[in-house]
């Protein structure tokens, strides 16, 4: 029985029986207080406290067009500027593409960086570069799902412990291509919540005991597992024993099941209906809301994955239909964080692996126009954690071909995120083979975001 007790001395099952509400006050705010204390302490000890306790990364897989989002080019010739008009935002002189209305309405909370670029024009390599801050070590193909370096989320959960039982890195609803832990090991792989929080029946699968099984009996089973599990393990990491990952997951599984914080954070049904509406009654909208709850519970990294931004064809109808829903959910998330006073300690970023080609093209075999891959320019949206409110950094040329002002790299992007989290991008990790590896090869952050 005792092993199932959490630090507050209540069993998980008791907690569920009492109802999460009983803990919504004490449990969570108590936890946040502890974190605040820790931060104060860090200042007293002369360390710089992290500006961001958590990061929510909205990953638009496929590479969203910069023209149709944050970098419209109304002056460009027709074959470049596309079908949409720019719209004014709350920030004087800052224009978004016309389908970004909700974000335009809160642009005074956003900082748009228009000048990140790199040289990896295919999905496999671009994903890797932007999701880890490191280029792939060898050339990889377009469809590749590769990992040569730990992802931001994995590094963050390695460096910044989540509250007991909660994984430090969530990826919702699936893991992004290069979102894995690489040499940091299975313990820092993302916890994937594939279940849909927009369903009335939403629960995170298999985190609760099956009906009819008591806590006591589960504890006995757990002890039994220890008893019968005599398979030798190869502790040396270079031996690559895949069983070690399973051990790690088993432990994480137990921790998650007994975590009050986790149960609470997953209980999205406790949110007021009105707020749920504001986030948008679709899977992505409710996932944004779930992300906010996870941030409240102290999870340091959440990736919200949204696929299908590889608009080689049909780009304008697709942007018209899908973008408003997505961007209004993101805007609701940022506003909600702000209303709760959490935006100063939460960094929200939105990006994909690259931008899109200036010239609109129709591929052979396709009937409708689109834009192709373009790594020479992309727009990245930042909000919160001390990033400037209502600013734009860098610029592309008048036709959107290339970043020309404040040309920034994925390494600059990675270093910004790590510094915000209080993680030194300059630090060296050692792989299981003993190879020293720089976390980020260029540890210069985007200084305008660091003020």
């Amino acid at each position: 029985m005792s092993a199932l007790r959490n630090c507050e001395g209540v069993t998980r099952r008791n907690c569920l029986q009492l109802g999460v509400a009983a803990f919504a006050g004490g449990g969570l705010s108590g936890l946040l207080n502890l974190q605040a204390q820790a931060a104060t302490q860090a200042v007293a000890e002369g360390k710089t406290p992290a500006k961001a306790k958590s990061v929510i990364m909205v990953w638009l897989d496929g590479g969203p067009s910069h023209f149709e989002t944050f970098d419209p080019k109304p002056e460009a010739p027709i074959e470049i500027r596309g079908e949409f008009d720019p719209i004014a935002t709350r920030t004087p002189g800052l224009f978004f593409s016309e389908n970004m209305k909700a974000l335009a309405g809160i642009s005074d909370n956003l900082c748009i960086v228009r000048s990140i670029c790199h040289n990896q024009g295919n999905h496999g390599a671009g994903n890797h570069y932007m999701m880890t801050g490191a280029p792939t070590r060898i050339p990889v193909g377009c469809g590749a799902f590769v990992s040569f370096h730990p992802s931001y989320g994995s590094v963050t959960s390695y460096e910044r412990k989540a509250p007991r039982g909660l994984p430090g890195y969530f990826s919702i609803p699936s893991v992004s291509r290069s979102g894995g832990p690489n040499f940091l090991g299975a313990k820092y792989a993302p916890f994937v919540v594939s279940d849909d929080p927009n369903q009335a029946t939403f629960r995170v699968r298999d985190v609760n005991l099956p009906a009819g099984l008591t806590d006591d009996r589960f504890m006995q089973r757990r002890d039994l597992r220890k008893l019968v599990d005599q398979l030798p393990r190869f502790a040396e990491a270079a031996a690559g024993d895949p069983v070690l990952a399973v051990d790690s997951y088993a432990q994480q599984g137990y921790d998650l099941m007994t975590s009050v914080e986790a149960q609470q954070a997953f209980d999205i049904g406790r949110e007021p209906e009105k707020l749920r509406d504001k986030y948008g009654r679709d899977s992505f909208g409710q996932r944004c809301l779930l992300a906010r709850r996870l941030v409240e519970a102290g999870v340091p990294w959440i990736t919200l994955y949204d696929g299908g931004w590889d608009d080689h064809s049909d780009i304008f109808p697709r942007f018209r239909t899908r973008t408003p829903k997505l961007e209004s959910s993101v805007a609701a998330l940022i506003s909600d964080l702000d209303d709760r006073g959490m935006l100063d300690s939460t960094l929200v970023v939105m990006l994909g692996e690259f931008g899109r080609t200036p010239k609109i093209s129709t591929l052979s075999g396709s009937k409708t126009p689109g834009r192709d891959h373009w790594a020479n320019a992309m727009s990245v949206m930042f909000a919160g954690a001390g990033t400037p409110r209502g600013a734009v950094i860098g610029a592309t040329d008048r036709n959107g071909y290339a970043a020309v002002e404040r040309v920034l790299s994925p390494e600059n992007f990675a270093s910004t995120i790590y510094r915000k989290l209080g993680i030194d991008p300059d630090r060296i990790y050692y792989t299981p083979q003993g190879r020293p590896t720089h976390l980020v090869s260029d540890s210069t952050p985007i200084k305008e975001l660091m003020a």
Partner: protein
Amino acid sequence: MPYRLRLSHAVLIGLFAFALGCAQTAVAATPATTALSPEAKSATTDTAVSSSQLNFELDVMPILTVAGCNGGPCHGKSRGQNGFQLSLLGFDEFDFNSIVKHARGRRVQPSAPDTSLLLLKGAGVLPHGGGVRLPIDGENYKTIRRWVSAGMPRATEKDPKLIGIEVSPRDKILPAKARQQLKVTARYSDGSTRDVTRLTAYQSNESPVAAIDQVGLVTAGALPGETAIMARYMNHIAVFNVAVPLSGKVEHETYAALPRRNFIDDLVWKRLERLGIVPSPPCDDATFLRRASLDVIGRLPTSDEVRKFLADKSADKRTKLIDDLLARPEYADFWANKWADLLRPNPYRVGIKATYAYDQWIRESFRENKPYDQFVTELVGARGSTFRDGATVLFRDRRTPEETTTLVCQLFLGVRLDCARCHHHPFEVWGQDEFFGTAAFFGRVGYKGTGISAPISGSEEFIYYKGSGEVLHPLTGAVVPPKPLTGSLELKPGEDPRPAFARWMTSPDNPYFAQVAVNRVWSELMGRGIVDPVDDIRATNPPTNPELLAALAQEFRNQKFDHKKLLRTILTSHVYELSSLPNPRNTWDLKNYSRHYRRRLRAETLLDAVCDVTGIPEEFAAMPERSRAMQLWTHRVSNLFLDSFGRPDPNQDPPCERVSDSTLVQSLHLMNSPGLHKKVTHDKGLAARLVAAGGSPEEWVEELYLATYNRYPTDAERRAAAGLFSADRTKHRAIAEDLLWALINSPEFTFIN
């Protein structure tokens, strides 16, 4: 893991970023660097070619290539860069026109060569997005300058042509931290050679093992390992293989004394000796029985089978076991299930009945142990109804010659041609000519009936040879005649080119066909392909043991492509029997087969195993009662267990590949899923039956261990587990259930050891 299939869709257009040259400068936050270090002298210490007369092909193209000008991120992009376009990685005469003729000739000025845009930009005198590529005081600048002032001569018919390059040494064992200078020599059609070491681009596949600098100096790392280093000069690639062995010497006698059952053992030991790796000893009988059963028929041995095998005292019982397993009916479903992973189309796209017909054709092929060459021949030449002739569904799914080409080449030749559809592959030798030459074999596939109207696609379609139809080259618009990747073949007028293509693929002269097949099978049985990924055979992704791959391929051909015989050859080798336990001299070895590599059971096998040991079958929609997971004919049959353990997702088009990693979700599913809980605690389940049948706790414990781990419990295990059963008989069933749960939740159950 090993069954990998990545089919590109629209993303083919991706611009290949070759991590060279230009790569560094696109990130303009760092100062621009050139691909050649300043002290790197140009080029060409000519050995035989006397080139007082420079020409474009022999002298200029190599400079543009090594400087990264024609790389994917720069002017090699499919639409060029700022109006200046080169062919990706420098292949076509396109580039000459681009430089000399386009832009009204501004790019070159023979009368005042230094005012040529090519040089002004390249040297960074005028603003250049790519930075300084041709330093003004460098040899490369001078070479191009000389070429311009000579009036931009091209190679003539009489000039020698580049026919290949060689790197020397080709392979070497280097002690830790040692250095080795490579030399790259270009060979020309007139028999002459040039040293092009400094005009070659290098790349190490694993720089911690051995790094290489821009002028070809290799430095071995501090830790043991092996890697390949790629050298690329123009469109030619050579590979240097380097091994950094473990320090300390192992006597030759150690290897001479190792058992040799067939050529596999011989070739693996040879490799290990070279690297100073010592293999693990053979595994015990119980481990062997479990491993072989799971590998051949995808199911656990029953407790009776375990008892019988362990009691058998005959010397050849392992070989006998292999023969018995190969004769079992489960063999067909298990291996067909693996092939279905590779071939199975998205049912939402091709329709459910076609999916079923296809699946049944695959299963039937394995039931009759159809020779592999025949299997492939029937598939690529399929004709008939998508409802009755399952193999035709390949063409229902792949509806253009281009789509068929990428699938067929990757699956059956291990050649990834999808990049070559749009441009030359930066680390391959294939280009658009090869791509469309291959596609032309599929240009006369006729369709009659109802096409694809996803998501329903309900109706029947007929695939036939329509007698005409051409494939056009996308750049030139010319008709491309069918031409195989290697060699040549004659087509009779009016002949369906597909069977001819199959003849070419399966002929003894085709090096790829048998290699990729044996590599797949080897990977399934040994945990890693000799080439990995298994379907990516190319010079720049070399096999870890080329002799072994070649010998296996030869054996498979000798066996007339008999799949079971191939399996038997591998399974009866001593190498297959090795224990998974590492020793100090093979701990780090993850690719030379000095020990068995542990693998998790694949989704279907694991679910079937859970059903078998609990005695409670899973219920599947659209399947007869008591069906096994490996008999499922479509992933549309929903099952949370199979999804959690990584069966491919059918909703994607093409379906994504199988994931063999372990995840937290899997651990939680085994622990807490209601489905598994029901099986473990079922009234007719193993635990309930055992206790109801009477007998002693020791007997129950033995039975549970035999059923799950397929071995007897040790005395200590037996005592400890039996001790759990207290005097209170009412609790016995619950304890037996919990014990069963614990066994299923342990890695000794979920892994092939």
